[in-house]
């Protein structure tokens, strides 16, 4: 069963299958864009619509009222790519617009960016788990690795990333047809453009995207806006930092400053939890990118996402004593002193055990040793890709 969309071609209604409609719209939009500079653009597009309508009529009959997607594609192929006869052919070839497109539908570079609404999909091709990251990456047109890293980081904030992922896995439709895949990677060529478009309603401007002059103008405006945005962001961060500073002082003023030893212990503890967090991150990244943690791959039959959840639980367990310890130190001067002191030693014990385990694993298992050595380059790689993305 297919959804049917009714369209109006030069005053006559035609019913098309949904996929066919998408393909036709991509074709007509791309035609309109290629004829951008043509003074007779509207007339030519009307002629082309009329010709398409004639071809549709030839396909339809008394017992056939809907044009199938296949037939639409056939008609588009028959029509051929629209080439602007008045454009200097050299220029047209140079920027690739004059090059014939094999039916706008199959040509995501030109056809799909024709203003078809962009949608968030799951993309199964090259997916690690459910294709959610893939779809998000296509939507914002950024490297899928970055999306995966972001999800991994989110996973460590109370498992939000995992929840979000699972939710999206259930909610998002899969991009199965080529039209859907085109829509998944569709209109905005970069993430920034998406932000831009959302910010200022530049949707209309996108129509003129094939035109160099407009594009340049648009780019200039966009850069200007981004600079403003960055400035705002920096100011915001600055204010946030000040606020934090104030709160910090208020907090300690209310509770009384902790014992002298805590001033040394707290930074160490924080450093430790940061280290463990980084390690946990590296574990998830390596699980996602190589399917193995510390050289140990998942047992057969256990999906990657289960591994990720397991890692997060393990991470929570590993950091629990640290958190507990910090907590007891913060309230060290308070009324819970006796109780938290026990917690404190309890935590020390936990950490000692953990460190012992890691030390033991490091010296007695070459796999673990290697994996620990891998963390640094992996982190650097992750940081590099984030940097690259920011530079772009």
């Amino acid at each position: 069963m297919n959804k049917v969309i009714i369209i109006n071609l030069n005053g006559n209604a035609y019913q098309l299958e949904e996929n066919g409609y998408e393909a036709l719209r991509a074709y007509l939009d791309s035609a309109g864009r290629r004829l951008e500079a043509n003074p007779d653009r509207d007339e030519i597009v009307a002629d082309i619509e009329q010709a398409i309508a004639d071809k549709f009529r030839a396909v339809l009959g008394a017992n056939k009222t809907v044009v199938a997607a296949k037939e639409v594609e056939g008609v588009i192929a028959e029509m051929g790519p629209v080439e602007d006869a008045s454009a200097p052919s050299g220029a047209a070839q140079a920027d690739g617009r004059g090059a014939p497109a094999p039916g706008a539908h199959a040509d995501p570079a030109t056809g799909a960016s024709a203003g078809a609404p962009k949608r968030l999909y799951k993309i199964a091709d090259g997916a690690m788990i459910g294709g959610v990251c893939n779809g998000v990456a296509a939507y914002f047109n950024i490297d899928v690795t970055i999306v995966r890293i972001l999800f991994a980081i989110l996973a460590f904030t109370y498992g939000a990333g995992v929840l979000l992922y699972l939710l999206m896995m259930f909610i998002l439709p899969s991009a199965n047809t080529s039209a859907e895949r085109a829509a998944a990677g569709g209109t905005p060529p970069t993430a920034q453009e998406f932000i831009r478009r959302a910010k200022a309603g530049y949707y209309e401007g996108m129509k003129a995207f094939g035109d160099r002059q407009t594009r340049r103008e648009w780019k200039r405006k966009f850069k200007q806006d981004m600079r403003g945005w960055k400035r705002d962001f920096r100011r915001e961060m600055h204010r946030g930092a000040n606020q934090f500073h104030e709160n910090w002082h208020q907090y300690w003023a209310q509770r009384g400053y902790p014992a002298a030893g805590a001033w040394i212990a707290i930074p160490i503890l924080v450093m430790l939890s940061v280290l463990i967090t980084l390690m946990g991150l590296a574990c998830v990244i390596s699980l996602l990118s190589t399917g193995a943690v510390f050289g140990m791959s998942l047992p057969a039959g256990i999906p990657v996402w289960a591994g990720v959840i397991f890692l997060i639980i393990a991470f929570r367990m590993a950091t629990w004593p640290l958190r507990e310890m910090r907590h007891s130190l913060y309230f060290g001067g308070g009324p819970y002193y006796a109780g938290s002191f026990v917690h404190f030693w309890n935590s020390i014990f936990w950490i000692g055990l953990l460190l012992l385990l890691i030390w033991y694993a490091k010296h007695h298992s070459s796999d673990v040793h290697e994996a620990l050595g891998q963390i640094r380059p992996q982190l650097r790689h992750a940081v590099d890709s984030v940097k690259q993305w920011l530079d772009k």
Partner: protein
Amino acid sequence: MHINEKFTPIRKGLLEFLVLKIVSADKVYVADILGQLSGTEFATQEGTLYPLLSKMRREELVDYEWKESEAGPPRKYYELTAKGREQLRETSDYWQKISGTVKSLGQKSGQQ
């Protein structure tokens, strides 16, 4: 490169000439032009022909009038203008010269 591809720009350039020729013979609409070209090396598609005809009309080489058709909506029937006929004559002459040159070049001088 296949010979067919090598001649792509030439075929493209000649298309306007051929359309002038076809339109000069009779009042035609786009499907007629496509039909006449379809069996030849110059077979083309609506996507190319409509923009070309629109350009030729802007240059006042052709003009069209709407005519009712037995089936479906009215169609645009194209015909040559005086300027178009002039252009066709010039182009034909030039083409004669070109094909003459193509024939004569590279022949042994003794045969001339």
